């Protein structure tokens, strides 16, 4: 029962935290561009407004896809540990690969629903999103694999515990950097917002979304980002109580926003070449260091 409450808390915290941080991110970007920018709670308004509208539905698979996307993202968000064993809802199932693949349910649901809308722009967007996934996941997974190999566990809360004596980021700094670059891709921040490029492909997968569909998918996106950043924080930035966890979360987020606000967008094959070049090579180098025991 406690686990259920913790899971619920995960959802609530994730929702409010990331939605506010998105607003903060907009504000930061605006400041970087010497604008005033919207208030930090702007995204709450956006989401609720979207939910309040009278939408269009492009068939049952469209609805089903959105529900699957949100359901999958929520399920993943419920598992993710937040910085310590205390804030781990399901210590027996928080395996990294489980989270990673459960996460894919949401992605697949979204992709299916959006292509189900019948719009080719959505298809192009999904095709780009999937290709991008091929790009960023590989270095990321190699880094995570070497972490798992190093700590001999794939359980996130155990990984967190094992970092008591030093953050993983400091044990394998190279890995941390690569994982952060991959994180940028995961979050879809510039320069990796290829799949939703509004000016090129009419915001890609979201082309046909209206009203509550847009709102629900926004919430799904919120949970997805919650999971992604949480994983990074857990795996690389060690444990601590909830407060510390939030601080680390915010720092990582702000860093990502700052980087993204000054960069233009990659083309899709540039993105692939980028990820499969230096980051992948360094990820392997990192794995080699771990194998040889050359960690800090």
């Amino acid at each position, binding site marked *: 029962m406690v686990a259920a409450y913790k899971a619920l808390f995960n959802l609530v915290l994730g929702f409010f935290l990331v939605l506010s941080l998105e607003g903060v991110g907009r504000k930061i970007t605006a400041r970087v561009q010497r604008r005033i920018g919207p208030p930090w709670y702007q995204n709450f308004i956006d989401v609720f407004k979207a939910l309040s509208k009278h939408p269009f539905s492009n068939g049952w698979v469209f609805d089903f896809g959105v529900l699957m996307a949100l359901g999958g993202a929520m399920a993943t968000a419920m598992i993710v540990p937040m910085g310590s064993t205390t804030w781990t809802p399901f210590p027996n199932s928080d*395996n990294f690969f489980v989270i990673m693949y459960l996460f894919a349910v949401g992605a697949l649901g979204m992709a299916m629903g959006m292509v189900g809308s*019948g719009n080719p722009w959505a298809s192009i967007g999904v095709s780009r999103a999937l290709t991008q996934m091929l790009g960023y996941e590989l270095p990321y997974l190699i880094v995570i694999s070497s972490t798992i190999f190093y700590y001999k566990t794939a359980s996130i809360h155990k990984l967190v515990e094992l970092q008591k004596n030093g953050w993983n980021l400091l044990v394998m700094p190279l890995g941390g950097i690569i994982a952060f670059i991959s994180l940028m891709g995961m979050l879809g921040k510039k320069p990796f917002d290829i799949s939703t490029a509004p000016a090129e492909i009419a915001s890609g997968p979201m082309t046909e979304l209206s009203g509550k569909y847009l709102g629900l998918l926004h919430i799904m996106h919120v949970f997805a980002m919650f999971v992604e950043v949480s994983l990074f924080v857990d795996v690389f930035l060690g444990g601590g109580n909830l407060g510390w966890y939030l601080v680390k979360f915010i720092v990582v987020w702000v860093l990502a926003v700052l980087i993204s606000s000054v960069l233009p967008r990659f083309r899709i094959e540039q993105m692939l070449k980028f990820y499969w070049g230096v980051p992948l090579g360094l990820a392997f180098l990192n794995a*080699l260091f771990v194998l040889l025991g050359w960690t800090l």
Partner: protein
Amino acid sequence: MAMSTLLVSLVATSVVMYFISKASWKIGAILNFLIGIFLISYVFALSTGTTSELGTLFGQKLQLIWTNASYYFSLVSLLVIVSVMLFAIKWLDSQKYPAAFNMFLLMMTAGSLGVFMAADLITLYIFWEIAVLSSMLIVPMGKKESRKAAVVYAVMSASGTYMYLYGAFLAFQRYGTLNISEIAKHMVSDPSTGIKATIFLLLASAGIAKSGIFPLHTWLRIAHGNAPDAFSAVLSGQLVKLGSYVLMVSVAALPSLKIFSNIPFYSGIPATNYFLIALGATSIIIGTLMAIKQDDMKMLIAFSSVANGGYILIGIGTMDPIGFEGGVLHVFNHALAAAVIFMAFASVVYRTHTKKISELGGLIHKMPITFLAYLFAIISLAGIPPMSGFISKWMIYQALVRKGMFITAFIAFFGSIGSFLYVFRPLAGVFLGQLPKKYKDVKEVSPIMWLPMVILVTISLIIGIWPFPILKPIEGMRMDFGIAPTMKIADSSHWLIKGFAGNWNPVLVFNLFLIGFVIAYILYTLFPRPKKVDLLAPHKKEGAPINIYTGGEFIYNPDLYQYNTKFYAGFERMYEKHPSWEKLLEMLAKFFYDLGEWVHGWFFRPSPSAYTFWVTLTILIVFWVRW
């Protein structure tokens, strides 16, 4: 009924089946299905350790034995075959040779079961060839290209099979027995690594050819792509698994870790196994990359079978307890998923008569059940929970990471994420998007055709949530082969699957997903009801434009607003000019043709005087050599 009686009578029945089907193929197909059901019940009733004797062949007893492995593989095979048999009851009306199809399908079933039951290498070979022969005769029943496909299939398969045969006789010559478990014992104590490795690789090559592993993978594309549509389900879902079985026999039943303990290569894995793993990894890369760029949906899944064969081989090849279980479980997952996918495609082709993704689209409006079956099958194929496909992939990753095999792990990850790409392509191009005008009168297939798909998908889902029934025989196999017999991976009392690095609870994960879905549904119902957009408007009324975002343009022909050619153009462009293994093998085939031409030109076509010359020359050479 003894196993030998069963197999012999199955082969005999298959001939009778031809004449029954000749009278009425429908009755034949129904009988086939009933026989399949009987076989499943038979498989459930057999207890492990049962033996039976088929007869003697040149002084060697042909023995059958029922083990955990036989149980598991037979069950998987029969699930696929019986589903296709049910599917065929209706589907066969689109075929030209229903009677022969029924006959060979039954014969192939007998052959496959025999392979799984065989206790010695020759029995295995006999049933193997029966399965190959009968399936090879079904393949050319398809469209025009399938003729060539049959030949390629036969030759590729034979090249593996004859290497196997050579290996089997080599083993027999050295150890004086053909019985697999006895050979295993002898091999452990045999000091000569070279011969052992030769035998090992020769035996494994049959599996390599059959399960479409790298150097011999090219037949999958052409054979799976062009075989009769429903039979592709058997080819990919079941026949390829014969190869996995042989690989498992050569890697695990002959305990490679003990046999080759003197040539460790990396992380305790012998060089021989590592060689196989490297082949498996190459197959994953090739299968994935090629699948991504296919326009023919059946060939796409054929390449995916190449990649998944690689997963199975990698899993088994590690001989790590969890990796081994993962590899073996992947047999089940891929069998079911591929069977459903091919059956879904068969349904699509049955209705639309094309298998080109670029000519299809929007069939979800017309064939929703087929779509759903396909959807759940690809979720399983891509290894996404809560379908069973995830469990095996998870296990394989566990093993790879534990062994520190980062490059192999990298390739496995690549294959896994690549599989998202390629399974999505038919989903988007065939089922979603705009329905082309010419398919506006297409209907859903009859229940006889969608029922088997739904059943298989349901099984896959149930196993994904509660995998312990299927993990039990796999653990039994692992015990039989003596791979870490004390370790327990499936812990059904705590609902856990235990890896070396953390556990997970499939029931919990499924429930979480369910809860997430319910919350999402509640949110969905809270807010204003949507207005339906009719995507079929242009089909229903002449002159109505499609009502989705078009940038303000009026589009009346939905065919124009469908994105399904070169779906991953950005990525495909990066490896457009890849070297083709298929071409290399074609060159090899052409070499033999040219050699034949050359031989013919020099020795067989010339005039009698040239013959005289050759005779004289031969006499001279022989004399020269012998004196």
